[in-house]
């Protein structure tokens, strides 16, 4: 049976990525295997949470998925099409379908461009709408992510960390992609703003059957936002499960460890109260 009928949007097959680094003086090479035959399926209209230790290769996987880094080996299938073998023109169209929010949003923004220009950029590149339409859309997007539209003329470095992150989200949403990859896109946001952005994402998902790959390190958020969870460890996916299932039936020792490391707020507060009483 064809897996695409099961609503699979993207299927990643034995994807590997090696980095080369050189030692300071000897200039001797050594290879870092950031991804080690990763297999992953992403179902249409669902949210996949990617969790894992820092340095596990999440961002690398994200970059490969977003087609901005060439993997050393493996393939990425999008509805049967191998994205890595695409021609330039098809790739251009594909880019519109896949959008990514980088872990480090600030360095992904040209420091010389204003916030408005930054958000408008993907629209302009893809040639969507007229100039004034685009600007209209930019202001709308800014409001949607909770950055005052009157700040459209500020430079990125004049925003706070969280605001920049929201600008990045706005920029990624601008193209209304089919697949949106968020690399720790909420890490610098407070709870209120997190909820606001998540709400927006949920809304969009409901309306356009969007697919999200969401790199999170906060397990508490996972079950709230994700349908499925993939756990990465040292460049490999060690578990891919239904989000609810994971908490109940985690198998891999690393997953268990990870779960153990994230206590719920109530328990901490309780612990504090207990400590105070003592």
């Amino acid at each position, binding site marked *: 049976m064809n897996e695409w009928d099961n609503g699979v949007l993207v299927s990643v097959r034995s994807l590997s990525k090696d980095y080369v680094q050189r030692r300071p003086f000897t200039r001797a090479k050594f290879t870092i295997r950031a991804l080690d035959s990763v297999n992953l399926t992403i179902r249409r209209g669902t949210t996949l949470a990617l969790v894992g230790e820092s340095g596990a290769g999440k961002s690398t996987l994200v970059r490969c998925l977003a087609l901005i880094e060439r993997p050393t080996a493996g393939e990425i299938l999008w509805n049967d099409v191998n994205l890595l073998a695409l021609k330039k023109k098809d790739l*251009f*169209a594909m880019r519109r379908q896949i959008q990514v929010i980088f872990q480090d949003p600030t360095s*992904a923004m*040209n*420091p010389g461009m204003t916030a408005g220009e930054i958000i408008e950029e993907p629209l302009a*590149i893809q040639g969507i709408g007229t100039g004034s339409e685009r600007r209209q859309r930019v202001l709308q997007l800014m409001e949607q992510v909770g950055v005052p539209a009157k700040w459209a003329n500020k430079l990125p470095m004049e925003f706070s960390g969280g605001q920049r992150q929201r600008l990045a989200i706005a920029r990624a949403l601008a193209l209304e992609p089919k697949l949106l990859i968020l690399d720790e896109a909420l890490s610098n946001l407070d709870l209120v703003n997190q909820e606001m952005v998540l709400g927006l994402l949920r809304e969009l998902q409901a309306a356009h059957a969007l697919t999200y790959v969401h790199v999170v390190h906060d397990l508490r958020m996972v079950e709230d936002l994700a349908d499925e969870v993939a756990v990465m460890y040292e460049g490999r996916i060690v578990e891919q499960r239904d989000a609810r299932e994971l908490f109940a039936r985690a198998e891999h020792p690393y997953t268990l460890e990870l779960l153990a490391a994230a206590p719920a707020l109530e328990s901490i507060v309780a612990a504090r109260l207990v400590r105070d009483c003592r």
Partner: protein
Amino acid sequence: MKRRYKLWATFAVLAGFHAAILFAGFLAPYSFSAQDRDAPYAPPSRIHFFDSHGTFHARPFVYGMKDDPENYGTYRVDFQQIYPLRFFVTGAPYKIAGLLASRTHCFGTAPGHVFLMGTDGYGRDQFSRLLYGGQISLAAGWIAAAFSILFGAIIGGLAGFYGGWLDDILMRGGELFLALPWLYFLFAVRAALPLQVAQWQVFLLLVVVIGLIGWARPARLIRGIVMSAKERNFVTAARAFGASDAYLLRRHVLPQAYGVMLTQMTLLVPQYILAEVTLTFLGLGVGEPMPSWGSLLASLQQYYVLASYWWMFLPTVLLIPVFLTYYAAADALQERVKSVAL
């Protein structure tokens, strides 16, 4: 607020300089080629309000000059002759901004002479020549520098952005360009041109050729920056939106080289203006009697001028603020277009 003010202020000063040069005919009391054979190497005329008896004159005046009988080729002030300075006087014909014929000069004296910056060896007014000289020099400097930077940006940008064999070819080509004995090329170009072509046109052409040849240096500078700039995350990010290479170069990569381009520009303009000093040395200069800043400076390079006629330095001294304003403008511009080098 403050920054913007600075930019406009420098631009205003520059505009002033350029207007003075554009309207050289009006501001200059004499034609650039008018020789006063009785007054070669005359020192600057001092403008007086009080005469030798201490009486005040409402209208400023200059004294006449006479040959110093003791020292050949030097002058003495002749206190007997008083020439009041007049404004909007009629003198040699000229064209306002190269278009409108006129004979009215901003200032002058009816009999006698007023040489604000002295005269050269032919008895020509240095001040007038300085003003006129800017016309050709600035044009030459700007055009040549613009060519160099333009070609440098295109070639350096492509080489740095694509790397690989393209980089090899372009950069080796640049080296070839740098290594060739261009002087001979200039000789050849000059020699190939018919004699009837006006000298200043020849000169302009040569400077443009220099500018065209001069792309290799900015190209290499820009290439280096582009090589680093294209690896930055926001360039990658724009790639993820499907940005074309041309777009990336234009919007994200080359702007990071603006600082270097501006710096190169502010250095190249004076350098190309002064290239004429060398060109004159080789007989490729603007040619008499056309003045240009390069030829004004070229005349300084003789020991006797250095040792005897201090006022011949005045053009140099006046060029310093012009170049300095260019720098200030470039600085202000750099602040505006700055791209944080991260």
